């Protein structure tokens, strides 16, 4: 550490130099000056490393407020997914750790897991005393899920019908747009890194969008996804160019669920032009838990 006297004797340009703020022309002159000034050399010896780090610090940006809820929801979903995978894995009788991503078999709540298949927690990580309750298997009622899914599909279908009606009826009343040439775009989607974490790393999808008057209808085919727990859904998004307040410009394309096959073929309608909103993303969402945009599992761009 330099003394007050050493600091006083050093030229201010020495400090500007270590923090990277000395103009280039003056820098050349300063380097010549260094040969004959031990006080400035002392500043360089003392502060060059920290000065270099300060010079290269990243910009001070704040994450958006919504990121916390989205991330915590994604973390919770990942834990639930992992738990279900483990239970399904045991039910399937396959203990070698393969094929976890393909099929989920719902956990049986009354079943006590064999010790070797419980989540490993190192002794140092055991929370609290022996009074801490053992983690209980999550109860999943399949009939309820079916009812929710049916309701969800009905809601999606109703929404699609309203949108289609809103387009078709005015067109029929006005005689249509004059039969414009139909434009088609294709969006191949691939799994993201998050999909691997989510256990759907092999998922693929393809969307074929066709212009229908002022709107677009697109057929979406997905493979390799997994049934989601509870009321969770997959959500399809069109991502626009640029950003608003640093956030992606997103327009929902609709939501869907998949069965045990992990595949689905759907037809959806959107008001956005996929030639402008060139990226499509598919996320996993948990309605009602505060999450606005879950992990992106599939993504792709219009060809």
């Amino acid at each position, binding site marked *: 550490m330099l003394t*007050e006297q050493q600091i*006083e004797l050093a030229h201010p340009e020495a400090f500007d130099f270590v923090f990277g703020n000395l103009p280039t022309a003056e820098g050349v002159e300063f380097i010549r000056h260094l040969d004959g000034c031990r006080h400035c050399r002392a500043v360089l010896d003392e502060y060059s490393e920290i000065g270099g780090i300060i010079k290269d*610090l990243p910009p001070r940006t704040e994450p958006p407020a919504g990121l916390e809820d989205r991330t915590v929801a994604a*973390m919770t979903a990942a834990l639930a997914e992992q738990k279900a995978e483990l239970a399904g894995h045991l039910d399937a009788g396959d203990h070698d750790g393969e094929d976890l991503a393909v099929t989920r078999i719902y956990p049986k709540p009354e079943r006590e897991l064999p010790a070797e298949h419980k989540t490993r927690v190192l002794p140092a990580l055991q929370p609290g005393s022996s009074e801490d309750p053992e983690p209980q298997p999550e109860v999943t009622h399949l009939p309820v899920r079916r009812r929710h899914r049916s309701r969800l599909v009905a809601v999606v279908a109703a929404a699609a019908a309203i949108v289609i009606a809103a387009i078709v009826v005015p067109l029929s009343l006005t005689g249509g747009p004059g039969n414009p040439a139909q434009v088609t775009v294709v969006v191949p989607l691939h799994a993201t*890194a998050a999909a691997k*974490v989510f256990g759907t790393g092999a998922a693929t999808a393809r969307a074929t969008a066709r212009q229908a008057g002022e709107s677009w209808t697109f057929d979406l085919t997905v493979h390799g996804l997994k049934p989601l727990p509870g009321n969770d859904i997959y959500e399809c998004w069109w991502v626009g160019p640029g950003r608003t307040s640093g956030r992606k410009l997103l327009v929902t394309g609709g939501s869907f669920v998949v069965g045990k096959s992990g595949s689905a073929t759907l037809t959806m309608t959107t008001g956005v032009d996929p030639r402008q909103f060139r990226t499509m993303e598919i996320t996993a969402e948990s309605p009602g838990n505060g999450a606005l945009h879950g992990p992106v599992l599939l993504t792709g761009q219009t060809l």
Partner: protein
Amino acid sequence: MARGDSGARTGPHEIGLIARIASRNDPDEAARRLYRKYHMELFRFGVHVLHDQGLAEDMVQETFIKFCRQASNYDPSRGPVRGWLFTMARSAAYDIARRPSSRPFLPVEDFQLPPQYDTVDQALTVLTVDQALDKLPSIHASVMRLVRDGLTHSEIAERLGIPIGTVKSRSAKAADTLRAELASLRGGGGAD
């Protein structure tokens, strides 16, 4: 995680949070607390290496998701959780940067993969200094803010209306404080 990763040690409270996530014992609250502790550093790291706030958000999410799924593997004797998180974040950032969707509006030749720090330590060093800037006394911090804005010491003296000798003294003291924080990091000290 490599043995010897730098960063503050993982305290008992934090180990308890990780254990709650690993055992799924009220994981929501534990996840939120860990998020609040590390998200700022991770986000800034993401912006730094990915040059995009949206992609940095993706990186933060993917890092915490991965962390949750691997929480039961965490061994505090092998190093601090901070180093572990940044190892995951670096990997997530690299994956994100390589996705075609991360560069839709740039010609391929104009897009650069994130700078790869030689070690996680290097990334942690930068972020430790970044955080330490917030802890500086206000008279030192005000000088360092202007230093970061690119002002020379003469310009800072004029801007703040103080003698240039005072500016030198304050920037030197600030640099000493930041160096001490770094030394603490490298020595493995610090608290939960």
